[in-house]
């Protein structure tokens, strides 16, 4: 049976640890694909997000990660970039513990971050793209509204309405 990992909030100073259980990880040349078996969600981590996730060993803090990231990407990196990555990883349940961002990160999203850091930082902005994996019925040809149907799975709306033989997709 699938269970939700137990997540306890960590402080802004905590050293994050990457989640390992119930994940399928596929490394691509510049990205990492992650499939979450618990939530049936798939994520694509760009290089920066993947590097930060890789640094999350439970011993490395955000400041140390920033230094490692600078050396790896060979560009100056603001610590807020690391926090933005951690925040996205945390929101997508890819860390063992929930991250509480420091006050300097409160309410900042990726777009605002890019504006604040300028063009030079754009190369390093972490991005986690996510989708919910479809059910078989969602990934098949379906019938539109008003088309006769026999069961819910035949309809794009997954809703076959009516009584007896006069059933149509909602």
């Amino acid at each position, binding site marked *: 049976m699938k269970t939700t990992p137990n997540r306890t909030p960590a402080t802004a100073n905590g050293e994050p640890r990457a989640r390992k259980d119930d994940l*399928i990880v*596929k490394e*691509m*040349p*510049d*990205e*990492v*694909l992650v*499939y979450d*078996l618990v939530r*049936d969600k*798939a994520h*694509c*981590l*760009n290089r920066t997000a993947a590097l930060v996730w890789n640094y999350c060993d439970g011993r490395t803090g955000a400041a140390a990660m920033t230094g490692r990231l600078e050396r790896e990407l060979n560009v100056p990196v603001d610590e807020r970039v690391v926090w933005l990555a951690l925040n996205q990883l945390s929101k997508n349940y890819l860390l063992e513990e929930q991250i509480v961002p420091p006050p300097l990160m409160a309410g900042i999203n990726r777009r605002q971050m890019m504006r604040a850091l300028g063009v030079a930082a754009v190369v390093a902005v972490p991005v986690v*793209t996510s*989708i*919910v*994996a*479809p*059910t*078989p*019925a*969602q*990934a*098949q*040809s*379906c*019938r*539109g*509204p*008003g*088309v*006769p149907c*026999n*069961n819910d*799975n*035949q309809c*794009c709306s997954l809703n076959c309405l009516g009584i007896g*033989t006069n059933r149509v997709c909602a």
Partner: protein
Amino acid sequence: MQKVDRLDWAAGFSLKSYGVRIGIRSNNPAYLARVHEHLPHNWEKMSSPIVDRLYSIVIGGEGARPNIRRFNLLYGNHVRLARSIELDEVFNTLESDLRLFVAELARGRVFVHAGVVGWEGRAVVVPGRSYTGKSTLVAELVRAGATYYSDEYAVFDSRGRVHPFPGPLQIRQEGGFKQTKIDVAQLGGRPGSKPLPVGLVLVTQFKKGARWRPRNLSSGAGALELLSNTVSARRSPASALDAFDNAVVGAQIVKGARGEAQEIVPFILERISKNR
């Protein structure tokens, strides 16, 4: 014993498609041959009666009294899938349910809801949900000389190559929901036979009046787009990711809303040719 098993079954056969075992039985053997028209193209008969799913077709027809007609019924295992006076409705439901079942459980293949054509030895894959205009675009590409692979499923192997899943194109009239089946030969095209590596993944949707301004996506984003249309995404995500990892290497991934299909056909074919 379930109620459906107590009925009087006159004939039946079992078959295998993509490693999935299917049984089909009917109370009227005369209609069993008609089932063949609705099976996936590469099925083969098998002698074993042990199957993964059993379809039961009850042909209704004339009732005991005049002016009374009995319903035609279709069961998948013990669940009723269709009940209709129209026999076509029952067979169409059989076809779509059987294809979906095979697509979900296929061994060694990953089925993605997509249209596919071949051009200069590369596959153009157009993943997308129903009513996004996949079949219309596939038909236009075929008219322009592309080889027809499928307008319903892109069938990937573990190496990321796309196999043909031919069948008649199902085109909807503009603004309508009713589909018309068209043979690829009627469009002047021909079906493909060999597996192809992917040249282009085109994530697009018809939007009336839209100007074609595509943007390039990364390989990872392309793999996500394929996964979001994969029938077995939840059942076997590891196989799907393996296949897509190989498929998107060297492929271009393009996304954007499109207007009329014929407007973007030259772009697609040129993009593939340039990338060879």
